[in-house]
């Protein structure tokens, strides 16, 4: 086996590592720029409210449906698992805790990533390809301020609200299954849910939601702004935004869970 054959995998690994480092540096710089524009005027209120409508209000159906079915399935799983230890009565409390701490924020975040990161990346990528970003600059408007900041702020504020609504719908999904299929008394189910939930169970999920919202919008804007030329470039940017946002959400979820709940 020649030296070149042996070293080529190492060279490929080196190139991939360098590319990853460069991308991380660019993303860090982009986040720094976004944060610096966040605190300096001008602020574009109209763009912010439009972003809230698109990211928050219009994501409600998909997040709600996801939470409803997840809560229902979770109740069934906990009932089946609990039955092995004669602990079926934990269904309301574990469903609620599982929804608000983990599944609500994570699945909500992932669904928003699929819906919003892709749409932001495609929109901004198309604007770049059609010179609309250049046009903004020539019209004395900073594209970071006009396009990125409103979307990032809107997502950071709206996703926790979506998570909160998703938590309620998810718990209701568990309640529906619990009362109609598993033989729970409605009032008892709701009382057990309420009694076992602590403020920080809900609060930690909402903080996660804010972090995930920031990730989703940042990834969408970053990949849109760095989109390649033509339809293929925009398509690649859209795909990269969704993949990067999803992976970053799962990684951030682990880190936040470690920070909030590790002993």
């Amino acid at each position: 086996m020649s030296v070149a054959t042996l070293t080529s995998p190492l060279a490929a690994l080196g190139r991939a590592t360098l590319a990853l480092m460069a991308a991380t540096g660019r993303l860090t710089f982009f986040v720094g720029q976004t944060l610096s524009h966040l605190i300096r005027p001008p602020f574009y209120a109209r763009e912010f409210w439009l972003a809230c409508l698109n990211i928050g209000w219009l994501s409600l159906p998909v997040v709600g449906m996801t939470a409803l079915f997840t809560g229902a399935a979770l109740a069934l799983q906990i009932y089946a698992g609990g039955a092995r230890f004669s602990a079926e009565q934990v269904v309301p409390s574990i469903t609620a805790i599982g929804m608000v701490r983990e599944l609500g924020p994570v699945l909500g975040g992932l669904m928003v990533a699929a819906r919003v990161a892709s749409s932001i990346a495609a929109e901004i990528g198309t604007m770049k390809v059609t010179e609309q970003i250049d046009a903004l600059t020539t019209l004395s408007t900073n594209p970071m301020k006009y396009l990125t900041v409103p979307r990032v702020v809107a997502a950071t504020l709206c996703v926790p609200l979506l998570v909160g609504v998703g938590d309620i719908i998810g718990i209701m999904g568990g309640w529906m299954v619990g009362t109609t299929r598993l033989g729970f008394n409605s009032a008892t189910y709701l009382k057990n849910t309420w009694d076992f939930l602590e403020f920080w169970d809900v609060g930690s999920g909402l903080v996660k939601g804010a972090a995930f919202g920031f990730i989703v919008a940042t990834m969408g804007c970053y990949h849109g702004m760095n989109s390649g030329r033509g339809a293929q470039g925009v398509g690649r940017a859209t795909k990269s935004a969704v993949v990067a946002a999803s992976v970053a959400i799962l990684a951030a979820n682990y880190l936040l869970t470690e920070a909030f709940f590790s002993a």
Partner: protein
Amino acid sequence: MITLEALTKSFGSKHVLRGVDLVVPTGQSTVIIGGSGTGKSVLLKCILGLIEPDSGTITLDGVDVHEGDRDAFLARFGMLFQGGALFDSLSVWENVAFRLLRGSLKRPKPEAREIAIEKLRRVGLSPDVADLFPAELSGGMQKRVGLARAIAAEPEIIFFDEPTTGLDPIMAGVINELIREIVTEMGATAMTITHDMTSVRAIADRVAMLHAGKIRWEGPIAEMDATPDAYVQQFIHGRAEGPIETLR
């Protein structure tokens, strides 16, 4: 007056601008001609700061364009982009009045709308189109809206990037006439990049030919046809044979 000195720009191993020297006189219409991929758009974007040149200087009225207040600098410019570059999410009048609705030139909304409608009328569009969205307009109408946006804040300098590309000959003629009229009545300095020779003859006071990253020839439009420069002659007559290499 815009002055470019020894301007260079490369993208990787591709050297697009190799030392461009050019003077764009105040109040005149200068047209840059040259084949596709010769760096005409890059040149224009370097002046506006959309692309950072590798070396060389660009001055506006003797002041380096990288010095001073960037917003104030950009406020002196209007630009018509090749594809219009209208904002899809905004109505036609909001596109035209974009600069008048925000920033240092901000006006009350009703006044900005009035100005936008007046500019639309100036480019031959009726007030009915004001509330439409760009996607509802034809290519020619989008170009007109782009032109209205470029002149809305009455800039001193207007750039036109391939203003007639993609238009039928009649619409191209209309856009050329509009550009000529508007530049004359506003007294603006205009810089146009195009490879449409009909446009050149309709718009230009002066012509500069960009080839191989440098200004190959420059002079008044009246002298263009008589120049002995073989590159210019090949280009303006659209000959396949000549010193400019073509893919065959």
